[in-house]
Protein backbone atom coordinates (compact mmCIF):
# COMPACT_ATOMS: atom_id res chain seq x y z
CA UNK A 1 0.00 0.00 0.00
CA UNK A 2 1.44 3.34 -1.08
CA UNK A 3 1.27 6.33 1.20
CA UNK A 4 -1.26 8.97 0.22
CA UNK A 5 0.21 12.10 -1.39
CA UNK A 6 -2.79 14.04 -0.26
CA UNK A 7 -5.28 13.51 2.49
CA UNK A 8 -8.27 15.62 3.41
CA UNK A 9 -9.55 15.20 6.93
CA UNK A 10 -13.00 16.48 7.75
CA UNK A 11 -12.70 19.61 5.63
CA UNK A 12 -15.43 22.18 6.16
CA UNK A 13 -15.58 25.55 4.45
CA UNK A 14 -18.18 28.30 4.10
CA UNK A 15 -18.40 31.61 2.31
CA UNK A 16 -20.02 34.11 4.68
CA UNK A 17 -23.22 32.12 5.24
CA UNK A 18 -23.36 29.26 2.75
CA UNK A 19 -21.54 26.06 3.54
CA UNK A 20 -19.65 24.96 0.45
CA UNK A 21 -17.77 21.95 1.78
CA UNK A 22 -19.17 19.93 4.65
CA UNK A 23 -17.00 17.41 6.48
CA UNK A 24 -15.20 16.06 3.40
CA UNK A 25 -12.56 13.39 3.94
CA UNK A 26 -10.64 11.41 1.35
CA UNK A 27 -7.17 10.27 0.43
CA UNK A 28 -5.41 10.31 -2.90
CA UNK A 29 -2.48 8.05 -3.55
CA UNK A 30 0.59 9.19 -5.39
CA UNK A 31 0.63 8.82 -9.19
CA UNK A 32 -3.12 8.51 -9.46
CA UNK A 33 -5.36 10.29 -11.90
CA UNK A 34 -8.45 11.44 -10.05
CA UNK A 35 -11.52 13.12 -11.50
CA UNK A 36 -13.72 15.29 -9.31
CA UNK A 37 -17.30 15.34 -10.54
CA UNK A 38 -20.59 16.64 -9.23
CA UNK A 39 -23.40 19.02 -10.12
CA UNK A 40 -23.01 22.80 -10.28
CA UNK A 41 -22.42 24.29 -6.86
CA UNK A 42 -21.35 21.00 -5.32
CA UNK A 43 -18.03 22.48 -4.15
CA UNK A 44 -15.64 21.20 -6.84
CA UNK A 45 -13.86 24.47 -7.58
CA UNK A 46 -13.65 25.37 -3.89
CA UNK A 47 -12.07 22.01 -3.21
CA UNK A 48 -9.53 22.64 -5.96
CA UNK A 49 -8.66 25.99 -4.40
CA UNK A 50 -8.01 24.22 -1.11
CA UNK A 51 -5.75 21.72 -2.81
CA UNK A 52 -3.43 24.48 -3.99
CA UNK A 53 -3.74 26.38 -0.73
CA UNK A 54 -5.38 29.52 -2.06
CA UNK A 55 -8.19 28.77 0.39
CA UNK A 56 -7.86 27.04 3.71
CA UNK A 57 -10.45 24.87 5.47
CA UNK A 58 -12.43 26.53 8.28
CA UNK A 59 -12.06 23.30 10.18
CA UNK A 60 -10.41 20.01 9.43
CA UNK A 61 -7.08 19.76 7.70
CA UNK A 62 -5.57 19.12 4.34
CA UNK A 63 -2.23 17.36 4.28
CA UNK A 64 -0.13 17.35 1.12
CA UNK A 65 3.07 15.32 0.96
CA UNK A 66 2.97 14.90 4.71
CA UNK A 67 2.51 18.55 5.62
CA UNK A 68 -0.57 20.63 6.44
CA UNK A 69 -1.22 23.18 3.68
CA UNK A 70 -1.37 25.94 6.28
CA UNK A 71 2.28 25.38 7.02
CA UNK A 72 3.62 25.48 3.49
CA UNK A 73 5.27 28.63 2.21
CA UNK A 74 3.88 29.96 -1.04
CA UNK A 75 7.00 29.03 -2.95
CA UNK A 76 7.09 25.52 -1.57
CA UNK A 77 3.49 24.86 -2.45
CA UNK A 78 4.02 26.26 -5.94
CA UNK A 79 6.81 23.75 -6.52
CA UNK A 80 4.56 20.91 -5.48
CA UNK A 81 1.11 21.79 -6.78
CA UNK A 82 0.28 23.52 -10.07
CA UNK A 83 -3.14 24.46 -11.36
CA UNK A 84 -4.43 25.15 -14.83
CA UNK A 85 -7.17 27.72 -14.25
CA UNK A 86 -10.29 27.94 -16.35
CA UNK A 87 -9.31 31.29 -17.68
CA UNK A 88 -7.06 34.14 -16.71
CA UNK A 89 -7.58 37.86 -17.08
CA UNK A 90 -5.29 39.26 -19.74
CA UNK A 91 -5.02 43.01 -19.31
CA UNK A 92 -1.41 43.63 -20.25
CA UNK A 93 0.10 42.14 -23.39
CA UNK A 94 2.68 39.60 -22.26
CA UNK A 95 4.25 37.19 -24.74
CA UNK A 96 3.13 33.58 -24.51
CA UNK A 97 6.66 32.53 -23.66
CA UNK A 98 6.83 35.05 -20.80
CA UNK A 99 3.65 33.56 -19.37
CA UNK A 100 5.12 30.07 -19.48
CA UNK A 101 8.37 31.26 -17.88
CA UNK A 102 6.33 32.57 -14.96
CA UNK A 103 5.93 28.92 -14.02
CA UNK A 104 9.60 29.04 -13.03
CA UNK A 105 8.99 31.73 -10.41
CA UNK A 106 9.00 29.44 -7.37
CA UNK A 107 12.47 28.21 -8.31
CA UNK A 108 14.14 31.57 -8.82
CA UNK A 109 15.83 33.81 -6.32
CA UNK A 110 14.10 37.15 -6.11
CA UNK A 111 16.47 39.19 -8.26
CA UNK A 112 17.62 36.53 -10.69
CA UNK A 113 16.63 36.38 -14.33
CA UNK A 114 15.65 33.00 -15.73
CA UNK A 115 18.70 31.00 -16.77
CA UNK A 116 19.20 28.59 -19.64
CA UNK A 117 17.75 25.65 -17.72
CA UNK A 118 14.56 27.61 -17.06
CA UNK A 119 14.22 28.44 -20.74
CA UNK A 120 14.80 24.79 -21.64
CA UNK A 121 12.10 23.64 -19.23
CA UNK A 122 9.68 26.27 -20.52
CA UNK A 123 10.32 25.34 -24.14
CA UNK A 124 9.90 21.68 -23.38
CA UNK A 125 6.56 22.41 -21.73
CA UNK A 126 5.52 24.44 -24.76
CA UNK A 127 6.54 21.67 -27.09
CA UNK A 128 4.47 19.19 -25.13
CA UNK A 129 1.39 21.37 -25.41
CA UNK A 130 2.07 22.45 -29.01
CA UNK A 131 2.57 26.15 -28.19
CA UNK A 132 5.96 26.78 -29.74
CA UNK A 133 4.42 28.17 -32.90
CA UNK A 134 3.03 31.16 -31.00
CA UNK A 135 5.67 31.51 -28.29
CA UNK A 136 6.40 35.04 -29.47
CA UNK A 137 2.86 36.20 -29.94
CA UNK A 138 0.98 38.21 -27.38
CA UNK A 139 -1.14 36.19 -24.97
CA UNK A 140 -3.96 38.71 -25.40
CA UNK A 141 -4.15 37.96 -29.13
CA UNK A 142 -4.45 34.18 -28.84
CA UNK A 143 -7.65 32.15 -29.16
CA UNK A 144 -9.22 30.58 -26.09
CA UNK A 145 -7.81 27.15 -26.94
CA UNK A 146 -4.33 28.52 -27.56
CA UNK A 147 -4.42 30.40 -24.27
CA UNK A 148 -5.41 27.27 -22.47
CA UNK A 149 -2.44 25.43 -23.94
CA UNK A 150 -0.15 28.23 -22.77
CA UNK A 151 -1.58 27.96 -19.26
CA UNK A 152 -1.09 24.20 -19.30
CA UNK A 153 2.52 24.75 -20.34
CA UNK A 154 2.98 27.21 -17.49
CA UNK A 155 1.70 24.63 -15.01
CA UNK A 156 4.05 21.99 -16.46
CA UNK A 157 6.97 24.43 -16.19
CA UNK A 158 6.33 24.47 -12.43
CA UNK A 159 7.42 20.81 -12.45
CA UNK A 160 4.74 19.93 -9.92
CA UNK A 161 4.13 16.62 -8.23
CA UNK A 162 0.40 17.28 -8.30
CA UNK A 163 -1.34 18.86 -11.27
CA UNK A 164 -4.80 20.35 -10.81
CA UNK A 165 -7.05 20.97 -13.80
CA UNK A 166 -10.24 22.99 -13.73
CA UNK A 167 -12.25 22.09 -16.83
CA UNK A 168 -9.03 22.38 -18.78
CA UNK A 169 -10.15 20.65 -21.93
CA UNK A 170 -13.27 22.67 -22.69
CA UNK A 171 -11.66 25.08 -25.15
CA UNK A 172 -9.38 22.53 -26.79
CA UNK A 173 -10.21 21.12 -30.22
CA UNK A 174 -10.32 17.34 -30.70
CA UNK A 175 -6.70 17.01 -31.76
CA UNK A 176 -5.40 18.96 -28.79
CA UNK A 177 -7.74 17.21 -26.39
CA UNK A 178 -6.33 13.89 -27.51
CA UNK A 179 -2.75 15.16 -27.30
CA UNK A 180 -3.32 16.65 -23.88
CA UNK A 181 -4.94 13.54 -22.42
CA UNK A 182 -2.21 11.26 -23.69
CA UNK A 183 0.39 13.72 -22.37
CA UNK A 184 -1.25 13.54 -18.95
CA UNK A 185 -1.22 9.77 -18.97
CA UNK A 186 2.41 9.73 -20.07
CA UNK A 187 3.51 12.18 -17.34
CA UNK A 188 1.50 10.14 -14.88
CA UNK A 189 3.29 6.96 -15.93
CA UNK A 190 6.80 8.29 -16.41
CA UNK A 191 7.08 10.96 -13.72
CA UNK A 192 4.55 9.67 -11.21
CA UNK A 193 2.59 12.89 -11.65
CA UNK A 194 -0.63 12.95 -9.66
CA UNK A 195 -3.44 14.54 -11.64
CA UNK A 196 -6.66 15.83 -10.12
CA UNK A 197 -9.15 17.23 -12.58
CA UNK A 198 -12.56 18.79 -12.26
CA UNK A 199 -14.91 18.07 -15.11
CA UNK A 200 -18.54 17.89 -16.11
CA UNK A 201 -17.80 15.31 -18.78
CA UNK A 202 -18.47 12.05 -16.97
CA UNK A 203 -17.27 9.85 -19.81
CA UNK A 204 -14.04 11.80 -20.06
CA UNK A 205 -13.60 11.15 -16.35
CA UNK A 206 -14.42 7.46 -16.69
CA UNK A 207 -12.00 6.99 -19.57
CA UNK A 208 -9.04 8.78 -18.04
CA UNK A 209 -9.22 8.61 -14.27
CA UNK A 210 -8.18 5.81 -11.98
CA UNK A 211 -10.53 7.09 -9.34
CA UNK A 212 -13.53 9.39 -9.20
CA UNK A 213 -14.61 11.66 -6.38
CA UNK A 214 -18.30 12.50 -6.58
CA UNK A 215 -19.36 15.60 -4.63
CA UNK A 216 -22.94 16.48 -3.86
CA UNK A 217 -24.08 19.55 -1.89
CA UNK A 218 -20.65 20.03 -0.42
CA UNK A 219 -20.43 16.46 0.83
CA UNK A 220 -18.40 13.54 -0.43
CA UNK A 221 -21.02 11.33 -2.02
CA UNK A 222 -18.73 8.60 -3.26
CA UNK A 223 -15.11 7.90 -4.06
CA UNK A 224 -13.68 4.92 -5.87
CA UNK A 225 -13.10 3.38 -9.28
CA UNK A 226 -15.33 4.56 -12.13
CA UNK A 227 -17.25 1.30 -11.89
CA UNK A 228 -17.91 1.88 -8.18
CA UNK A 229 -18.96 5.48 -8.48
CA UNK A 230 -20.82 5.60 -11.78
CA UNK A 231 -23.88 3.60 -10.94
CA UNK A 232 -27.34 4.43 -12.20
CA UNK A 233 -28.56 5.01 -8.63
CA UNK A 234 -25.73 7.38 -7.73
CA UNK A 235 -26.27 9.46 -10.83
CA UNK A 236 -30.02 9.55 -10.39
CA UNK A 237 -29.65 10.63 -6.80
CA UNK A 238 -27.00 13.28 -7.42
CA UNK A 239 -27.85 14.69 -10.85
CA UNK A 240 -31.55 13.82 -10.94
CA UNK A 241 -31.23 12.16 -14.35
CA UNK A 242 -31.86 8.72 -15.79
CA UNK A 243 -28.82 7.09 -17.38
CA UNK A 244 -27.92 3.89 -19.12
CA UNK A 245 -24.56 2.36 -18.32
CA UNK A 246 -22.57 -0.06 -20.46
CA UNK A 247 -19.00 -0.78 -21.48
CA UNK A 248 -17.29 1.33 -24.06
CA UNK A 249 -16.34 -1.22 -26.80
CA UNK A 250 -13.15 0.72 -27.68
CA UNK A 251 -11.34 0.83 -24.36
CA UNK A 252 -13.51 -1.17 -22.01
CA UNK A 253 -14.24 1.88 -19.84
CA UNK A 254 -17.50 2.55 -18.11
CA UNK A 255 -19.84 4.45 -20.43
CA UNK A 256 -22.72 6.63 -19.28
CA UNK A 257 -25.49 7.55 -21.70
CA UNK A 258 -27.99 10.21 -20.76
CA UNK A 259 -31.55 8.93 -21.33
CA UNK A 260 -33.82 11.81 -22.18
Amino acid at each position, binding site marked *: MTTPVLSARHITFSYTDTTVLDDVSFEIESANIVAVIGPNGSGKTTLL*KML*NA*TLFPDSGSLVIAGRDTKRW*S*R*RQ*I*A*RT*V*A*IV*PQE*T*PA*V*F*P*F*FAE*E*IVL*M*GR*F*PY*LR*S*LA*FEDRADYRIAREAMEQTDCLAFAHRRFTELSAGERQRVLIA*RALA*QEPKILLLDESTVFLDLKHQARFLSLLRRLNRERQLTVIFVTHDINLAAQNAHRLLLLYNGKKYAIGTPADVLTAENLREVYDVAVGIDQNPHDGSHRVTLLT
Partner: protein
Amino acid sequence: MFAAISLASLGVGAIAIAPQDVLSALLGALAGQELSASEDLILFSVRLPRILFAGVVGASLSVSGVVFQALLRNPLADPFVLGISGGSALGAIVAIVIGASAFYLGLPFLAFAGALATVFLVFIVAGGPRGVLLDNSLLLAGVVVNSFFSAAILFALSVVDSLELHSISFWLMGDLSRASLAEIGGSALCLGVCFALLYAQARKLNLIVQGEETALQLGVNVRATKYILLAVTSLVTAVAVSFAGIIGFIGIMVPHMMRLVYGSDHRLLLPAAALFGASFLVAADTVARTALAPSELPVGVITALCGAPYFIFLMRRKERR
Protein backbone atom coordinates in the same frame (compact mmCIF):
# COMPACT_ATOMS: atom_id res chain seq x y z
CA MET B 1 17.93 60.28 -24.42
CA PHE B 2 17.60 61.73 -20.94
CA ALA B 3 21.06 63.24 -21.36
CA ALA B 4 20.22 64.76 -24.74
CA ILE B 5 16.98 66.32 -23.57
CA SER B 6 18.64 67.68 -20.46
CA LEU B 7 21.38 69.21 -22.56
CA ALA B 8 18.88 70.84 -24.88
CA SER B 9 16.87 72.02 -21.93
CA LEU B 10 19.94 73.57 -20.33
CA GLY B 11 20.42 75.76 -23.37
CA VAL B 12 16.82 76.87 -23.82
CA GLY B 13 15.35 79.57 -21.68
CA ALA B 14 14.62 83.23 -21.43
CA ILE B 15 18.27 83.71 -22.23
CA ALA B 16 19.30 81.24 -24.91
CA ILE B 17 22.67 79.63 -24.79
CA ALA B 18 23.85 77.68 -27.84
CA PRO B 19 24.15 73.90 -27.38
CA GLN B 20 27.86 73.84 -28.11
CA ASP B 21 28.40 76.54 -25.48
CA VAL B 22 26.40 74.49 -22.98
CA LEU B 23 28.46 71.44 -23.74
CA SER B 24 31.75 73.27 -23.53
CA ALA B 25 30.66 74.98 -20.32
CA LEU B 26 29.79 71.62 -18.79
CA LEU B 27 33.02 70.03 -19.92
CA GLY B 28 34.90 73.09 -18.84
CA ALA B 29 33.34 72.95 -15.39
CA LEU B 30 34.29 69.32 -15.10
CA ALA B 31 37.82 70.26 -16.05
CA GLY B 32 37.81 72.96 -13.39
CA GLN B 33 37.72 76.04 -15.62
CA GLU B 34 36.20 79.33 -14.51
CA LEU B 35 32.99 80.33 -16.27
CA SER B 36 31.65 83.76 -16.94
CA ALA B 37 29.55 84.74 -13.95
CA SER B 38 26.22 85.00 -15.76
CA GLU B 39 26.55 81.68 -17.55
CA ASP B 40 27.60 80.05 -14.35
CA LEU B 41 24.59 81.44 -12.55
CA ILE B 42 22.09 80.51 -15.20
CA LEU B 43 23.42 77.07 -15.96
CA PHE B 44 24.43 75.75 -12.60
CA SER B 45 22.35 77.64 -10.09
CA VAL B 46 19.10 77.90 -11.98
CA ARG B 47 18.72 75.43 -14.77
CA LEU B 48 20.77 72.40 -13.81
CA PRO B 49 19.15 71.84 -10.39
CA ARG B 50 15.76 72.37 -11.91
CA ILE B 51 16.43 69.84 -14.65
CA LEU B 52 17.69 67.30 -12.17
CA PHE B 53 14.62 67.88 -10.06
CA ALA B 54 12.29 67.54 -13.04
CA GLY B 55 14.02 64.26 -13.83
CA VAL B 56 13.56 62.95 -10.32
CA VAL B 57 9.90 63.95 -10.15
CA GLY B 58 9.14 62.62 -13.63
CA ALA B 59 10.78 59.31 -12.83
CA SER B 60 8.97 59.08 -9.47
CA LEU B 61 5.54 59.68 -10.93
CA SER B 62 6.10 57.34 -13.89
CA VAL B 63 7.34 54.51 -11.73
CA SER B 64 4.38 54.98 -9.37
CA GLY B 65 2.10 54.82 -12.38
CA VAL B 66 3.62 51.53 -13.53
CA VAL B 67 3.19 49.97 -10.11
CA PHE B 68 -0.37 51.18 -9.55
CA GLN B 69 -1.42 49.95 -12.97
CA ALA B 70 0.05 46.55 -12.29
CA LEU B 71 -1.42 46.23 -8.79
CA LEU B 72 -4.86 47.24 -9.96
CA ARG B 73 -4.56 45.53 -13.34
CA ASN B 74 -5.91 48.67 -14.94
CA PRO B 75 -3.93 50.66 -17.50
CA LEU B 76 -5.85 53.82 -16.59
CA ALA B 77 -4.65 53.93 -12.99
CA ASP B 78 -2.03 56.39 -11.83
CA PRO B 79 -1.35 58.40 -8.68
CA PHE B 80 -3.11 61.45 -10.06
CA VAL B 81 -6.28 59.76 -11.35
CA LEU B 82 -6.65 57.68 -8.19
CA GLY B 83 -6.47 60.80 -6.06
CA ILE B 84 -3.20 59.83 -4.36
CA SER B 85 -1.51 63.00 -5.59
CA GLY B 86 -4.46 65.02 -4.29
CA GLY B 87 -4.22 63.27 -0.95
CA SER B 88 -0.52 64.07 -0.68
CA ALA B 89 -1.18 67.67 -1.64
CA LEU B 90 -3.85 67.98 1.01
CA GLY B 91 -1.45 66.50 3.54
CA ALA B 92 1.20 68.98 2.47
CA ILE B 93 -1.19 71.93 2.71
CA VAL B 94 -2.38 70.84 6.12
CA ALA B 95 1.28 70.80 7.09
CA ILE B 96 1.67 74.38 5.86
CA VAL B 97 -1.53 75.58 7.54
CA ILE B 98 -0.84 74.07 10.94
CA GLY B 99 2.79 75.05 10.69
CA ALA B 100 4.18 71.51 10.71
CA SER B 101 6.22 72.33 7.65
CA ALA B 102 8.57 74.24 9.91
CA PHE B 103 9.69 70.95 11.41
CA TYR B 104 12.27 68.79 9.74
CA LEU B 105 10.51 66.55 7.19
CA GLY B 106 7.13 67.65 8.54
CA LEU B 107 5.81 68.45 5.09
CA PRO B 108 6.73 65.23 3.26
CA PHE B 109 5.65 63.23 6.28
CA LEU B 110 2.13 64.65 6.27
CA ALA B 111 2.05 64.31 2.49
CA PHE B 112 2.91 60.63 2.90
CA ALA B 113 0.18 60.26 5.51
CA GLY B 114 -2.24 61.89 3.09
CA ALA B 115 -1.18 59.51 0.31
CA LEU B 116 -1.58 56.42 2.48
CA ALA B 117 -4.96 57.59 3.72
CA THR B 118 -6.06 58.06 0.13
CA VAL B 119 -4.95 54.59 -0.90
CA PHE B 120 -6.95 53.24 1.99
CA LEU B 121 -9.98 55.38 1.14
CA VAL B 122 -9.96 54.52 -2.57
CA PHE B 123 -9.75 50.83 -1.78
CA ILE B 124 -12.70 51.07 0.59
CA VAL B 125 -14.84 53.04 -1.82
CA ALA B 126 -14.00 50.80 -4.78
CA GLY B 127 -13.90 47.50 -2.94
CA GLY B 128 -16.45 44.92 -3.99
CA PRO B 129 -17.30 41.84 -1.97
CA ARG B 130 -14.34 40.04 -0.42
CA GLY B 131 -11.83 42.70 -1.35
CA VAL B 132 -12.25 42.29 -5.09
CA LEU B 133 -11.62 45.59 -6.84
CA LEU B 134 -14.11 46.49 -9.48
CA ASP B 135 -12.56 47.95 -12.57
CA ASN B 136 -14.59 51.06 -13.17
CA SER B 137 -15.56 51.72 -9.60
CA LEU B 138 -11.90 52.29 -8.96
CA LEU B 139 -11.69 55.19 -11.38
CA LEU B 140 -14.97 56.48 -10.02
CA ALA B 141 -13.62 56.28 -6.51
CA GLY B 142 -10.62 58.27 -7.72
CA VAL B 143 -12.89 60.97 -9.12
CA VAL B 144 -14.91 61.17 -5.93
CA VAL B 145 -11.86 61.25 -3.70
CA ASN B 146 -10.18 63.78 -5.95
CA SER B 147 -13.08 66.22 -5.86
CA PHE B 148 -13.35 65.81 -2.12
CA PHE B 149 -9.71 66.71 -1.79
CA SER B 150 -9.93 69.71 -4.08
CA ALA B 151 -12.76 70.99 -1.91
CA ALA B 152 -10.71 70.39 1.20
CA ILE B 153 -7.70 72.07 -0.40
CA LEU B 154 -9.79 75.09 -1.39
CA PHE B 155 -11.09 75.25 2.15
CA ALA B 156 -7.58 75.12 3.55
CA LEU B 157 -6.49 77.80 1.10
CA SER B 158 -9.24 80.15 2.16
CA VAL B 159 -7.95 80.03 5.72
CA VAL B 160 -4.41 80.76 4.65
CA ASP B 161 -3.47 84.43 4.40
CA SER B 162 -3.53 85.79 0.90
CA LEU B 163 0.21 86.33 0.59
CA GLU B 164 0.90 82.64 0.40
CA LEU B 165 -2.09 82.02 -1.81
CA HIS B 166 -0.46 82.68 -5.13
CA SER B 167 2.53 80.50 -4.46
CA ILE B 168 0.42 77.65 -3.13
CA SER B 169 -1.96 77.67 -6.05
CA PHE B 170 1.00 77.77 -8.42
CA TRP B 171 2.53 74.84 -6.58
CA LEU B 172 -0.76 72.94 -6.82
CA MET B 173 -0.53 72.94 -10.59
CA GLY B 174 3.01 71.64 -10.45
CA ASP B 175 5.98 73.87 -9.89
CA LEU B 176 9.52 72.67 -10.29
CA SER B 177 11.19 76.01 -9.74
CA ARG B 178 11.29 76.31 -5.99
CA ALA B 179 13.02 73.17 -4.83
CA SER B 180 16.15 73.75 -2.79
CA LEU B 181 19.27 71.70 -3.38
CA ALA B 182 18.61 69.77 -0.18
CA GLU B 183 15.10 68.94 -1.32
CA ILE B 184 16.35 67.80 -4.69
CA GLY B 185 18.96 65.62 -3.08
CA GLY B 186 16.45 64.22 -0.60
CA SER B 187 13.89 63.35 -3.21
CA ALA B 188 16.55 61.81 -5.45
CA LEU B 189 17.76 59.68 -2.57
CA CYS B 190 14.20 58.64 -1.75
CA LEU B 191 13.56 57.76 -5.39
CA GLY B 192 16.76 55.72 -5.54
CA VAL B 193 15.95 53.68 -2.45
CA CYS B 194 12.31 53.20 -3.38
CA PHE B 195 13.17 52.27 -6.94
CA ALA B 196 15.52 49.57 -5.67
CA LEU B 197 12.76 48.24 -3.40
CA LEU B 198 10.24 48.24 -6.25
CA TYR B 199 12.65 46.71 -8.71
CA ALA B 200 13.26 43.84 -6.34
CA GLN B 201 9.54 43.07 -6.65
CA ALA B 202 9.46 43.40 -10.44
CA ARG B 203 8.95 39.76 -11.22
CA LYS B 204 6.26 39.47 -8.58
CA LEU B 205 4.54 42.37 -10.30
CA ASN B 206 4.54 40.37 -13.53
CA LEU B 207 2.71 37.61 -11.73
CA ILE B 208 0.29 39.88 -9.90
CA VAL B 209 -0.71 41.33 -13.25
CA GLN B 210 -1.91 37.83 -14.16
CA GLY B 211 -4.43 38.01 -11.33
CA GLU B 212 -3.93 37.72 -7.62
CA GLU B 213 -5.08 34.16 -7.44
CA THR B 214 -2.68 33.13 -10.19
CA ALA B 215 0.14 34.92 -8.42
CA LEU B 216 -0.67 33.04 -5.22
CA GLN B 217 -0.64 29.76 -7.09
CA LEU B 218 2.71 30.50 -8.63
CA GLY B 219 4.26 31.17 -5.27
CA VAL B 220 3.90 34.90 -4.58
CA ASN B 221 2.96 36.02 -1.11
CA VAL B 222 0.42 38.41 -2.61
CA ARG B 223 -0.83 40.22 0.45
CA ALA B 224 2.59 41.13 1.80
CA THR B 225 3.86 42.10 -1.64
CA LYS B 226 0.86 44.33 -2.21
CA TYR B 227 1.29 46.18 1.07
CA ILE B 228 4.97 46.77 0.43
CA LEU B 229 4.32 48.01 -3.07
CA LEU B 230 1.47 50.29 -2.04
CA ALA B 231 3.47 51.80 0.80
CA VAL B 232 6.58 52.37 -1.29
CA THR B 233 4.73 53.87 -4.25
CA SER B 234 2.73 56.09 -1.92
CA LEU B 235 5.98 57.33 -0.44
CA VAL B 236 7.49 58.04 -3.86
CA THR B 237 4.37 59.90 -4.91
CA ALA B 238 4.14 61.85 -1.67
CA VAL B 239 7.73 63.03 -1.86
CA ALA B 240 7.34 64.10 -5.46
CA VAL B 241 4.10 65.92 -4.69
CA SER B 242 5.29 67.61 -1.52
CA PHE B 243 8.19 69.28 -3.37
CA ALA B 244 6.75 69.68 -6.84
CA GLY B 245 3.00 69.90 -6.45
CA ILE B 246 0.43 68.02 -8.48
CA ILE B 247 1.68 67.03 -11.89
CA GLY B 248 -0.92 64.85 -13.52
CA PHE B 249 -1.10 62.20 -16.22
CA ILE B 250 2.60 61.42 -16.48
CA GLY B 251 1.90 58.23 -14.59
CA ILE B 252 -0.52 57.14 -17.29
CA MET B 253 1.18 58.29 -20.46
CA VAL B 254 4.72 57.15 -19.76
CA PRO B 255 3.97 53.57 -18.65
CA HIS B 256 1.61 53.10 -21.56
CA MET B 257 4.12 54.27 -24.14
CA MET B 258 6.84 52.14 -22.58
CA ARG B 259 4.61 49.08 -22.71
CA LEU B 260 4.17 49.62 -26.42
CA VAL B 261 7.92 49.73 -26.87
CA TYR B 262 9.30 47.28 -24.32
CA GLY B 263 6.39 44.93 -23.62
CA SER B 264 4.98 44.16 -20.21
CA ASP B 265 7.91 42.64 -18.32
CA HIS B 266 8.34 44.90 -15.29
CA ARG B 267 12.03 44.16 -15.09
CA LEU B 268 12.38 46.21 -18.26
CA LEU B 269 9.35 48.38 -17.79
CA LEU B 270 10.32 49.94 -14.46
CA PRO B 271 13.72 51.31 -15.52
CA ALA B 272 12.39 52.30 -18.93
CA ALA B 273 9.53 54.22 -17.34
CA ALA B 274 11.88 55.91 -14.88
CA LEU B 275 14.22 57.16 -17.61
CA PHE B 276 11.54 58.12 -20.07
CA GLY B 277 9.44 59.73 -17.35
CA ALA B 278 12.45 61.80 -16.33
CA SER B 279 13.08 62.90 -19.92
CA PHE B 280 9.42 63.62 -20.47
CA LEU B 281 9.08 65.90 -17.50
CA VAL B 282 12.31 67.73 -18.29
CA ALA B 283 10.96 68.36 -21.79
CA ALA B 284 7.57 69.43 -20.45
CA ASP B 285 9.17 71.74 -17.93
CA THR B 286 11.35 73.25 -20.62
CA VAL B 287 8.23 74.04 -22.61
CA ALA B 288 6.56 75.38 -19.46
CA ARG B 289 9.32 77.88 -18.75
CA THR B 290 9.93 78.96 -22.34
CA ALA B 291 6.49 79.06 -23.94
CA LEU B 292 5.55 82.39 -22.36
CA ALA B 293 9.06 83.50 -21.47
CA PRO B 294 10.05 85.46 -19.48
CA SER B 295 7.02 84.43 -17.40
CA GLU B 296 6.39 80.77 -16.62
CA LEU B 297 3.59 78.25 -16.76
CA PRO B 298 3.12 75.59 -14.08
CA VAL B 299 4.42 72.38 -15.62
CA GLY B 300 1.25 70.57 -14.54
CA VAL B 301 -0.58 72.65 -17.13
CA ILE B 302 1.59 71.20 -19.89
CA THR B 303 1.29 67.58 -18.75
CA ALA B 304 -2.47 67.90 -18.29
CA LEU B 305 -2.82 69.48 -21.72
CA CYS B 306 -1.14 66.44 -23.31
CA GLY B 307 -2.34 63.91 -20.77
CA ALA B 308 -6.07 64.43 -20.66
CA PRO B 309 -6.58 63.81 -24.38
CA TYR B 310 -4.29 60.80 -24.14
CA PHE B 311 -6.39 59.45 -21.29
CA ILE B 312 -9.57 59.82 -23.31
CA PHE B 313 -7.93 58.09 -26.25
CA LEU B 314 -6.85 55.17 -24.05
CA MET B 315 -10.24 54.87 -22.46
CA ARG B 316 -12.10 54.83 -25.74
CA ARG B 317 -9.77 52.23 -27.14
CA LYS B 318 -10.25 50.09 -24.08
CA GLU B 319 -14.00 50.26 -24.41
CA ARG B 320 -13.95 49.20 -28.02
CA ARG B 321 -12.17 45.97 -27.13
